[in-house]
């Protein structure tokens, strides 16, 4: 099996190229020992090859976890071929990474992506001249539109040449030290099977690249290590000042000469459209109102205008024709009563009650992907940074929090993009307060049952309360945890129209994830609950004397002060710990109603409006679902931290719900 690695800067189009090459033949895992996502895939045209998508990074002098992983991978795994994807419209900075990769000396090909954007700005890039100067094949392409990757496949099929490494000239004193270290490295017996350029290893050693140092230490004898360390020490002592700067300068100077040779500009730089949009979007006074307006628009589209009407269609189908067909089919098959009850009341009611929320989740993620792919998300991070920094987080932390509106599991996963440990811990801790889409199923049910006017307003208030809780919590945590914020660096790529296909892929991915959860956890839960609700120690029994009633009744007193001390409410909150969307299906079964429409009517008799509102706020804030808890343990690596989050959210939920309930009693 041959490995092909895909490497490049963030925003260079790595994901697009990976999707074009692999299609659906992808597999997402984790890098060994850490929680950074590792995507692998297979290329149909290249059987026997596996392609690895390395994290998007700017440099091989590793600072962040992602950079360390990518550098270590390139050093230790030595992939058989390396595709370096480069943004042609941002060539100078992208080539800095390319130069580093080519200096390593692994067999490489440069994918010159977004050539259309570059041409649109009047840039003409002489590909063959570039190829000649870099000493590696250069393939112009537009990965987003799946154009130009054929030649890339052709090159990979025929095999790439192992080069001896790109030669970048450095100042004389650096060259002398590099030569000395290279000679020492070459004297070692492991030289023969070394796949990287010795010159590059020596240079990285001189610069003090930790990852390279680690690899060399594992290869050479301690005696040789000592001699290499001595060369470096004497260099640093005499000429070491600004060594890192001089090395980088040499690379950028070399790139400057290269660009002058290979790139010509026909007309003036045309960032103007993007800049004009930014003048409005990042406007001092309008930026944040526009951002909030976008968020409100997303919610209206998802929960009022489009999503809900589609959900109603599914609901009508599930509770009407589908139930009837299944009923008559089962009657025709002469199935026993208990089985018919299991299928219709347990399975159909449970799964159906959840599937109706798929359109809303799909549309929410369609909106979020649109904002992400268009380049707006990066602006949102910039806009929010001033505000986020007051709670000890940076603007980037806003993105995981936004994802929390979809599902807390990917939200906590996304905290990996933050560079500092403290930021990751705090963001993971407060993410569950962001109201996830599963909770929306509960809101929809209650809001349409109890509040005729201002449905969207109540849902908006719920979301807002979650945000306020998250902020407040982060603020409190800031007082207790030491302050070592990571540096905030956010690239602002030019705006572009998102590709329909990639929006659809992403939306489909999220919706499928939700359905899969509905299909497995909820299916199991539904059957279990149906059993608990229809049986007691004395065999089959009516619901109000069942196991379910007993368990619910046992925990119900906890909620007495909140106005919903019924066993049905207790049981649904209990099962809601397994997955928040199960709250609705549990209620459907516990209140013995077939679908969410009639469930609403039943609920009107069971809750006062004040208690219903309190219940909503409780569901918003209480203990996150078991998947979220598991994810938090995985990401923070601390049970203490995870359990603290569980206990804290339960306490907060109880207090807030109590306040809301009392307030509701005053209003109604």
């Amino acid at each position, binding site marked *: 099996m041959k490995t092909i690695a895909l490497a490049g800067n963030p925003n260079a189009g790595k994901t697009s190229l990976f999707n074009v090459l692999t299609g659906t033949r992808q597999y997402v895992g984790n890098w060994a020992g850490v929680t950074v996502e590792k995507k692998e895939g297979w290329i149909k045209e290249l059987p026997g090859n596996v392609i690895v998508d390395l994290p998007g990074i*700017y*440099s091989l*002098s590793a*600072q962040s976890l992602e950079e360390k992983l990518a550098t270590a991978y390139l050093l230790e795994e030595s992939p058989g071929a390396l595709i370096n994807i480069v943004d042609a419209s*941002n*060539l*100078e*900075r992208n080539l*800095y990474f390319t130069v580093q990769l080519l200096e390593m000396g692994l067999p490489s090909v440069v994918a010159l992506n977004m050539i259309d954007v570059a041409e649109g700005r009047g840039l003409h890039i002489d590909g063959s001249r570039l190829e000649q100067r870099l000493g590696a094949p250069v393939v112009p392409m537009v990965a987003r539109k799946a154009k130009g990757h054929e030649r890339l496949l052709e090159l990979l099929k025929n095999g790439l040449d192992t080069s001896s490494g790109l030669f970048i000239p450095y100042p004389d004193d650096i060259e002398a030290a590099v030569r000395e270290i290279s000679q020492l490295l070459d004297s070692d017996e492991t030289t023969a099977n070394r796949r990287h350029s010795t010159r590059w290893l020596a240079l990285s050693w001189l610069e003090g690249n930790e990852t390279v140092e680690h690899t060399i230490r594992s290869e050479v004898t301690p005696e040789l290590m000592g001699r290499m360390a001595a060369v470096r020490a004497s260099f640093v002592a005499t000429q070491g000042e600004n060594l*890192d*700067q001089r090395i*980088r*300068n040499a690379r*950028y100077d070399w790139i400057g000469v290269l660009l002058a040779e290979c790139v010509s500009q026909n007309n003036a*730089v045309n*960032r103007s459209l993007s*800049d004009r949009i*930014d003048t409005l979007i*990042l406007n*001092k*006074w309008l*930026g944040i109102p526009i951002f909030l307006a976008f968020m409100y628009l997303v919610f209206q589209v998802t929960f009022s205008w489009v999503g809900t009407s589609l959900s109603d269609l599914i609901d009508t189908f599930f509770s009407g024709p589908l139930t009837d067909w299944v009923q008559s089919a089962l009657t025709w098959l002469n199935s026993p009563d208990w089985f018919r009850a299991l299928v219709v009341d347990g399975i159909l009611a449970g799964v159906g009650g959840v599937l109706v929320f798929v359109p809303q989740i799909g549309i929410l993620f369609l909106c979020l992907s649109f904002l992400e792919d268009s380049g707006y998300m*990066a602006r949102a*991070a*910039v*806009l929010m*940074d*001033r505000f986020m*920094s007051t709670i000890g987080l940076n*603007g980037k932390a806003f993105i995981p929090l936004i994802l929390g509106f979809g599902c807390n599991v990917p939200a906590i996963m996304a905290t990996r993009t933050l560079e500092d440990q403290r930021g990751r811990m705090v963001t993971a801790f407060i993410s569950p307060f962001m109201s996830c889409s599963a909770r929306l199923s509960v809101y929809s049910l209650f809001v349409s049952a109890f509040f005729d006017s201002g449905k969207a307003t109540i849902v908006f208030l719920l979301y807002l309360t979650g945000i306020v809780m998250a902020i407040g919590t982060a603020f409190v945590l800031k007082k207790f945890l030491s302050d070592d914020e990571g*540096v*905030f*660096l*956010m*690239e*602002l*790529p030019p705006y572009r129209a998102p590709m329909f296909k990639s929006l659809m892929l992403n939306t489909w991915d999220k919706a499928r994830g939700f359905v899969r959860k509905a299909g497995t956890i909820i299916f199991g839960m539904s059957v279990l609950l149906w059993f608990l609700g229809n049986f007691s120690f004395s065999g089959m029994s009516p619901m109000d004397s069942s196991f379910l009633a007993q368990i619910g009744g046992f925990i119900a007193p906890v909620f007495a002060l909140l106005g919903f001390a019924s066993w049905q409410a207790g049981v649904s909150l209990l099962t809601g710990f397994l997955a928040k969307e199960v709250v609705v299906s549990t209620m459907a079964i516990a209140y013995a109603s077939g679908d969410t429409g009639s469930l609403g009517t039943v609920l009107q008799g069971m809750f006062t409006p004040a208690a219903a509102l309190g219940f909503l706020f409780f569901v918003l804030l209480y203990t996150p679902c078991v998947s979220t808890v598991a994810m938090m343990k995985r990401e923070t690596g601390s049970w203490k931290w995870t359990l603290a989050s569980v206990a804290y959210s339960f306490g907060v939920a109880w207090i807030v719900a109590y306040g809301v309930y009392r307030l509701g009693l005053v209003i109604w």
Partner: protein
Amino acid sequence: MRLSECKEGIKAVVKDLFMNESIRKRMMDLGLLPGTEVSVVRKAPFGGPLVVQFRGYQISFRLSEAKQIAIEAC
């Protein structure tokens, strides 16, 4: 003069970076070295992050970083 004091839209040249080792390296990897031509595209109100342009692209960082970048207007 520091980058933080620079007016929007004025071109300047980086003189020196006075920041800790790892941030300094990161900035230089991104192409912001002494000698690089840089301009502030946008400043946020209330001391929010700046949008800075160099080497043909735009990146945003905080005022605290901009205060550690010495520049010379040109």
